[in-house]
């Protein structure tokens, strides 16, 4: 079980709740479980969600494992210049 925090706008489509306890071993499973629970999240995942694990932002490494005691924060995927 990991505790995941969603940024403001995403929490609006996740039942208005920012914090979620989810049983997930990696980013892929986290996204799948979130989408199962809140179908409204799916288009956001398609558009891109970045996952901060202990402050380090992962954008594409869906195989990244989620350590039990890690700080996990979902963020929008951004554009750069």
């Amino acid at each position, binding site marked *: 079980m990991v505790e995941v925090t969603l940024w*403001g*706008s995403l929490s609006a489509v996740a039942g208005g709740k920012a914090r979620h306890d989810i049983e997930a071993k990696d980013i892929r499973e986290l996204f799948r479980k979130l989408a199962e629970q809140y179908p409204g999240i799916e288009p956001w995942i398609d558009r891109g969600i970045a996952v901060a694990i202990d*402050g380090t*932002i992962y954008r594409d490494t869906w195989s990244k494992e989620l350590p039990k005691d890690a700080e996990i924060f979902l963020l929008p995927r*951004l554009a*750069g*210049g």
Partner: protein
Amino acid sequence: MNFDPRFSGRQFASVGTRPIRPDGVDKVTGRARYGADFNMAGQLVGRVLRSPHAHAVIKKIDTSKAEKLAGVKAVITAKDLPDLTDGDAAMYDILDNCMARKKALYDGHAVAAVAAIDARIARQALKLIEVEYEVLPHVTDVDEAAHHHAPLINDQVFTEGLEEKPAKPSNVTKRTQFGHGDVHAGFAKADFIVERSYKTEQTHQGYIEPHACVASVNPDGTADLWVCTQGHFVYRQHCAQLLGMEASKLRVTSSEIGGGFGGKTHVWAEPVALALSRKAGRPVKLVMTRDEVFRASGPTSATSIDVKIGARKDGTITAAEATLRYSCGPYAGSWAEIGAMTAFACYKLENVKTVGYEVLVNRPKTAAYRAPSAPMAAFAVESAVDELAHELGMDAVDFRIKNAAQEGTRASYGPVYGPIGIGPTLEAVKHHPHMKAPLKANQGRGMACGFWFNFGGQTCTDLNIGMDGSVSLAVGTVDVGGSRASLSLVAAEELGIDYSHVKAIVADTSSLGYNDMTDGSRGTFSSSMATISAARNAIKILRERAAQMWDIPVEDVTWEKGHAVAKGEKYGNLSPLSLKDIAAKSGTTGGPIAGHSELVADGAGVSFATHICDVEVDPETGSTRVIRYTVVQDAGKAVHPTYVEGQYQGGAAQGIGWALNEEYIYGKDGRLQNAGFLDYRIPVCSDLPMIDTQILEIPNPNHPYGVRGVGETSIVPPLAAIANAVSNAVGVRMTHIPMSPPRILAALDAEREG
């Protein structure tokens, strides 16, 4: 692939040195080939017809006269670029931006295009295309557009991110929110509160090379595209999707690129060139004029930002809040969102809230510009922070040090920071001699901080070792400012050979696996990671070959300083084999030696900078000159320090231009009035002083050498640093960027008149 990206704290032999770049001689002799320097036999000239209206329904386009003109080989409109985006809203916007479908949404929006045997005939043909417009009311100002009575740019847009779906459409496409704690409670604890509104005008990346491409579509459906881009793989995807082609049949070659800064991250005219070539059956060269670059490529957002920050007497910030409105052009974007994330990223805040609003306007589609959205937010926040320090009677640097984020701080955008550089840059500034240098009358000093995320992303690299022991490195991230030198250094470092034996090139889309763009300061971070991985894979093969040559088990062979070394007492008589020795025998030990790497370079390290700036203001004219400038920034690890300095200096210079003179100026008719380098005033050589730099190296734990990105952060602090310097010089707080002479003089006059 078992690549370990963790920082290892090694000693460097090549990394950190400053050799001459591999593409240098071509560039000082005029031989380097940029977008417009390439030609194909039988090529036609493509030209685009653009809307003179800011907002108009396209009722009818008659191309028949143009088609009849001798020498015209193809005329296209939106009909020739049918919608194949299959519900992908972002791609549909790109398509509509390449060629207006129902409405022209800004002055300069493409409505038709021609291909002709020369430029004169193409120009004539454009004049023969008859477009019937129904002109609609327009809006170009971000605040006016956000107003409920503003002309609607897209009546299908209902603001996202609100608790309830709104009943009426609006130009505000999205609301986003970030933060934590309780700002109301925080402000209640504050002894001092600063609250102000700020505006920044729209600026352009101002790359000196206009967009240019040569497109050639063959009758069998295969095609070639030569183009200046920050990401040829992304251009391939976009073009293939928009034209209904298989990606593998479209080979995109990135030319040398004459600057991008975010502006060459998505397609503008390339699908048009391909569609023209497809229709004409001949290659088409399409080069934008400077006027077109300004009117119809992607500048940054204009913004309107409200900031409120409160602090206790002891200098602790108790709460911080910002509302940010960013213009997106006529298509939805996420620009305010990034502003909302970056605004307070430098600080340790218990209570923080930022809200972003994305606003549609009748201006060109906003594109990324170097740390997109961050400079405007930093301008507003760092101006307010300075003012608050002043009210508290605290030194501006000390106040920031007291409130700076550090390892373990929850960032205002959500996660908790690892090791970061904001504190060290502030300490370096505090002790920098620049801070103690004397100032004269009408001179003032300002400082400000800046933050940028930095990105990684999909990356693919090939490293081939020739029989003579020299190394060809093929990367897929476009080199926008010397990365081939940095990546050659990294290959040399990892292999343990001299830099002079490595030659890096940027491979085309048919020669290498997919690579994300060179954006988000990712070029050196990502491709160096992939290069290290490729080199390690090559070393594995080199060890195997040495083992063969020695006829010993590969487990007994290690790689040290460019040599295979047989480990153990029993091999005492075996001299190490150099990479060159092994390469020379490769033909009989198993053939070519190469290392490949495909990876997602994730874990880019966030980056912070603090800038110091001295200005002199002429109180009678409002003219401002930057007389001294210092950049302090964390690079993680500077692979080629000279080019890192170059990034710091270039970002500062762009920021200085933005702060003082650069802006898009629209007339009441919604037309851009300054679409050229004469009146869109980027800094010239005599406008600037030398720009001093100090590179800090706080290793990124997620890169073998500790590399963070360096390209973007340097444009974040200048707007505020200069505004703070002007305030300290002449006592007026400038809240509108650019601080052009008329704005400063008006502010001074208002101050003098009380």
